[in-house]
């Protein structure tokens, strides 16, 4: 009996150990190694030494503050666009989708069955200077011959919005779906107009979904570099491109690590401030879902 309870106490550790080790070695330790690397100096030929080289951080900011700021600005714009585009759709599906709700959601999730890179390449194809949209418009003279969309901010923002929109629709839908329609009816019974019923009842109840959607859209958009690599040009470079280049082409690991850490810190602080500003309970409720 005592042997059994002893094994019972050990069981969670035994069962959780292999996965925990994997996560420790290949998730937690790499973050620590990256932090240590960000404080080293040297180069790839003669090796790196740990010298508390805090100047890597200031140099990262001096060299690449433009790309840092651009990434945050893009992420803000794209998150706002996603919210505005997704809300009406999530609202209609949640309240009027009827028996077909899951079909609509499935249609919205269809892009996930195509590789992220292929989807973005497909937009490059659609927006090409001589492609299926701009080509005919130029032939009939509606657009000047030198008009182009690729390599512009518009194309990058469009691609980002397209790729991350489903991440916004889902949490909004989940929140709106939980709003009891009888609350809206009650508002109407109390002579609320459709607009004020929405403003005072439905929208406040959907706020947890808005918070979740903003979080899970903003973080990946700010660190994305695939969209701007494929659809953008030199004037749309984001911090992700810089980090990738400095790591893989320049082999300046300390500088690249410092930038990755700056990005992560900025996002963490952003999330924290956001959580404080909106009330922690709501964000915790979101996080637990």
């Amino acid at each position, binding site marked *: 009996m005592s042997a059994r309870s002893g094994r019972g106490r050990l069981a969670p550790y035994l*069962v959780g150990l292999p*996965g925990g080790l*994997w996560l420790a070695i*290949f998730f937690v330790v790499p973050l620590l190694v990256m932090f240590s690397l960000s404080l080293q100096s040297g180069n790839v030929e003669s090796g790196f030494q740990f010298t508390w080289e805090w100047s890597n951080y200031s140099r990262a900011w001096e060299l690449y503050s433009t790309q840092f700021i651009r990434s945050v600005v893009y992420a803000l714009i794209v998150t706002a666009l996603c919210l505005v585009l997704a809300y009406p759709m999530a609202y209609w599906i949640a309240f009027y989708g009827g028996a077909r709700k899951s079909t609509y959601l499935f*249609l919205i999730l269809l892009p996930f069955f195509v590789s992220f890179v292929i*989807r973005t390449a497909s937009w490059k*194809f659609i927006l090409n200077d001589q492609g299926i949209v701009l080509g005919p418009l130029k032939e009939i003279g509606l657009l000047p011959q030198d008009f182009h969309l690729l390599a512009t901010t518009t194309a990058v923002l469009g691609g980002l919005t397209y790729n991350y929109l489903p991440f916004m629709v889902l949490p909004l839908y989940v929140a709106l779906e939980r709003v009891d329609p009888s609350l809206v009816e009650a508002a109407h019974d109390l002579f609320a107009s459709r607009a004020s019923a929405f403003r005072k009842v439905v929208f406040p109840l959907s706020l947890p979904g808005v918070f979740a959607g903003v979080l899970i859209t903003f973080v990946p958009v700010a660190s994305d570099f695939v969209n701007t*690599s494929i659809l953008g040009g030199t004037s749309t470079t984001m911090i992700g491109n810089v980090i990738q280049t400095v790591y893989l082409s320049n082999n300046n690991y300390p500088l690249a*690590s410092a930038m990755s850490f700056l990005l992560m810190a900025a996002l963490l602080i952003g999330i924290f401030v956001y959580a404080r500003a909106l009330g922690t309970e709501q964000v915790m409720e979101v996080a637990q879902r």
Partner: protein
Amino acid sequence: MSTVATRQAPPEVAPAPAVPGRRRRWTRLILPTYTWLMIFYFSLPILVMIVFGFNDIQGRLNLRWQGFTLRWYRELFAIPGLTTALRNSLLIAVIATIISVILGTMIGLALGRYRFRGKGAYDLVIFSAISAPELVLGASLLSLFVTTQFVRGFVTIVIAHVAFSVSFVAVTVRARVLGLDPALEEAAQDLGADPWTTFRKITLPLLAPGILAGALLAFALSIDDYVVTSFVNGQVETFPLWVYGATRVGVPPQVNVMGTLIFLGGVAIAVGNAVLARRQRA
């Protein structure tokens, strides 16, 4: 669309005759129309991908429609680099899924079933691994591999894919563990089953839907991953990496065909899964 609109209309229009009827009926169409336009927008790149896999192009560039052909389906494996990349991706995805499912299921059981010291920290690590930007995951793994001078290639890609998939499997399985009725396992033990038999005959079958969902998720994440892989791949190319490289010089139609086949396979699995789930409930 029209059937939905008319089905929705009667119960709400009827009791509100005081409001000008014509305007309300017209505005009622705005949201459904908008939703369908957005669904069209969501599927536009997919339609383009499928259609231009049948494009009879002569040169390198697949830009304008030039006639219908099945040539690219016949010559699907005509580009050696692309074929190798696809094979690598499939192999990596299978291996990474198997490891993630085994480790993730065990984590899910440990976190869902037991209270133990360090559980809070464990939960925090899982939550961070899911919410950390892929860029940071890739960059930190690369830091580890260059510091330890670990040769980058097939093995490091599998390691990285397991590192980000295992948490997703864990939360999916944990959700299922939390929903288990403990009475079923107690009943098995009362009938004389030892713990291992109980686990194999009772617990595992009950967890199966969660494990399957986790496996599909892990496979989809692995086969589609570009960001993390691009940091740890060394000389090995995967399907997303190859396509990414090709976007600079022009994507060959074989990519459209492979994309189409993967898309149809994925949709078939999802629809099959949904039909099965509905039949089980009925």
